[in-house]
């Protein structure tokens, strides 16, 4: 083969950005995060300030998203709601990824009885729909910010155990793992220094999709009254507040729903983009 025929494989970044989806997703998600962080400075009003004279006002120049039944500015509430939704989603996903991946790698790598027990427990947990499980956990733990994060994280754990375990099973048959054993490396070192970095791509793809699922679960729980207690603004809570006046003031529920829609689309675009970037079988 002459040197001229050697073509460098396109970098993962190039492959990821070729379709544009990942870029759009990242731009949208980063914008949302920046808005959430800057909420106190960019929100036009205090999200909890009531104004009985301005109840259920439709969108206008002063109140872009209108006002709710207590006269609170919906735009400000949506902006502040982003903080809770993204915070809960991010931390719950992070905790779920961390715990689930560690258990999954250990289970897949060690095999045997440990693996059978963990897999059986995972199957039991996975048989509950995510929302039902989150509901049960919040009902048991009580509705608070921390408990919400814990509950949603627990719903994510079995999914990550499964992904990490499956990838580890494939990885531990690879020659380099034998080579590590032949070098006298311990199981912990092989699991977390050699196997883990090799399965991170799948975990990250899955993580971005679960981030979306966590936000959805948080909103749903808030909608049915099991979220962060009022008057704290959360997207699910705002939709629920607007639900009572849905026929006369549709904007109350529409704008927070749009916010959820945008972050869902953004995170799914990111997830798909990452999968395309890391999957060598993806069409070029």
């Amino acid at each position: 083969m002459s040197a001229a025929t050697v073509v460098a494989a396109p970098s993962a970044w190039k492959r990821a950005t070729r379709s544009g989806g990942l870029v759009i997703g990242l731009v949208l998600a980063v914008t949302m995060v920046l808005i959430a962080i800057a909420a106190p400075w960019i929100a036009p009003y205090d999200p909890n300030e009531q104004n009985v004279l301005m109840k259920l006002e439709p969108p206008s120049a002063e109140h872009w998203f209108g006002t709710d039944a207590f006269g609170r500015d919906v735009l400000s509430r949506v902006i502040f709601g982003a903080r809770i939704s993204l915070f809960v989603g991010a931390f719950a996903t992070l905790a779920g990824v961390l715990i689930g991946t560690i258990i999954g790698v250990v289970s897949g790598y060690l095999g045997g009885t440990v693996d059978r027990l963990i897999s059986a427990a995972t199957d039991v947990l996975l048989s509950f729909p995510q929302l039902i499980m989150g509901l049960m956990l919040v009902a048991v733990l009580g509705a608070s910010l921390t408990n919400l994060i814990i509950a949603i994280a627990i719903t994510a754990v079995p999914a990550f155990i499964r992904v990490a375990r499956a990838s580890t099973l494939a990885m531990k048959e690879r020659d380099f793992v034998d080579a590590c054993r032949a070098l006298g490396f311990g199981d912990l070192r092989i699991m977390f220094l050699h196997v883990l970095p090799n399965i991170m791509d799948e975990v990250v793809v899955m993580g971005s999709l679960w981030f979306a699922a966590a936000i959805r679960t948080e909103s749903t729980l808030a909608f049915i009254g099991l979220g962060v207690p009022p008057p704290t603004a959360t997207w699910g809570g705002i939709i629920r507040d607007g639900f009572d006046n849905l026929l006369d003031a549709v904007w109350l529920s529409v704008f927070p729903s749009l916010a959820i829609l945008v972050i869902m689309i953004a995170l799914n675009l990111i997830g798909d983009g990452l999968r395309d970037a890391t999957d060598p079988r993806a069409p070029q």
Partner: protein
Amino acid sequence: MSATAATDALPNAVASAEKPALIVDGLTTSIRIDRQWFDAVRDVSFAIHPRETLALVGESGCGKSLTALSVMGLLPAGVGRISSGRITVDGTDMTAASAAAAQAMRGDRIGMIFQEPMTSLNPVLPIGFQIAESLVQHRGMSARQARQRALELMELVRIPAAAQRLDAYPHQFSGGMRQRVMIAIALACSPKVLIADEPTTALDVTIQAQVLALLADLQRREGLAVLLITHNLGVVAAVADRVIVMYGGDVVESAPVNEFFRRPTHPYSEALLAAMPRVDRSAAALAPIPGQVPTLPDLPAGCRFQSRCPHRIERCAELPPLMPLAAMPAHGVRCWVRAP
């Protein structure tokens, strides 16, 4: 049979006052098939001195790789086990050692290189890190010291522009270069014994020759005892001092390399050499060995080659011992017909 008896009966080609770096004495390794244990390696004995190369030859499934895994203490738990025999590496009895002690030996006093350089390196870690890792692990070096030593090792195995490649990843290396990296990793802690499991099979011929020459050079310099596992008789002729031919888990012939090629005695060795293509004969003259290696549960009692052997006699139902030839005591053969 004790180790000394084994080495007395079959003196080594390389006369050496030094103690053998690796002694395998009466090794029997069993593997499990459908809840039954079968002896896949039977009563294998050999000793390798520093600077000596022993080639373990045989076709797939003859037990040569299993022998290597037994020596490394890396038999898969629940599937393979050492049923009897003793393995001594650099004076330490590996079979009696605790799991932790055996682990500390691996990569430190006994190294191994594998067949597939393309997959034996971790794809997501830089080369320099992978070479340095066992130095940190076994020698307690700091990351900086180990990195410096990794650079020296890369130069030792003649990787060009080593300093620029410390932080390169395996996919940026060719097969031959990766095998050099594997050798550098295996030799990082200056082991006494190196097991090379088909080290050149995955490489093309010119690269094979380079890697073999490098191995031979490093062996002289570091005083390594090399256990070379291969089915390539050309490689054996080029680098080995002594040859052990295995068939169905038995050592069928053991001889110094020149003696082996001059006078292959066991019918299986004879057949192996006749089946090897040579430049001075036409390809049509190749004589394949009829039949296939029986699977473990189907192996016959007695001599395991008897089902494919053209010289079979009744006594073959009884397992012959490894008998030294009268003319050449270092040459042993496990055959009733050919032994004196």
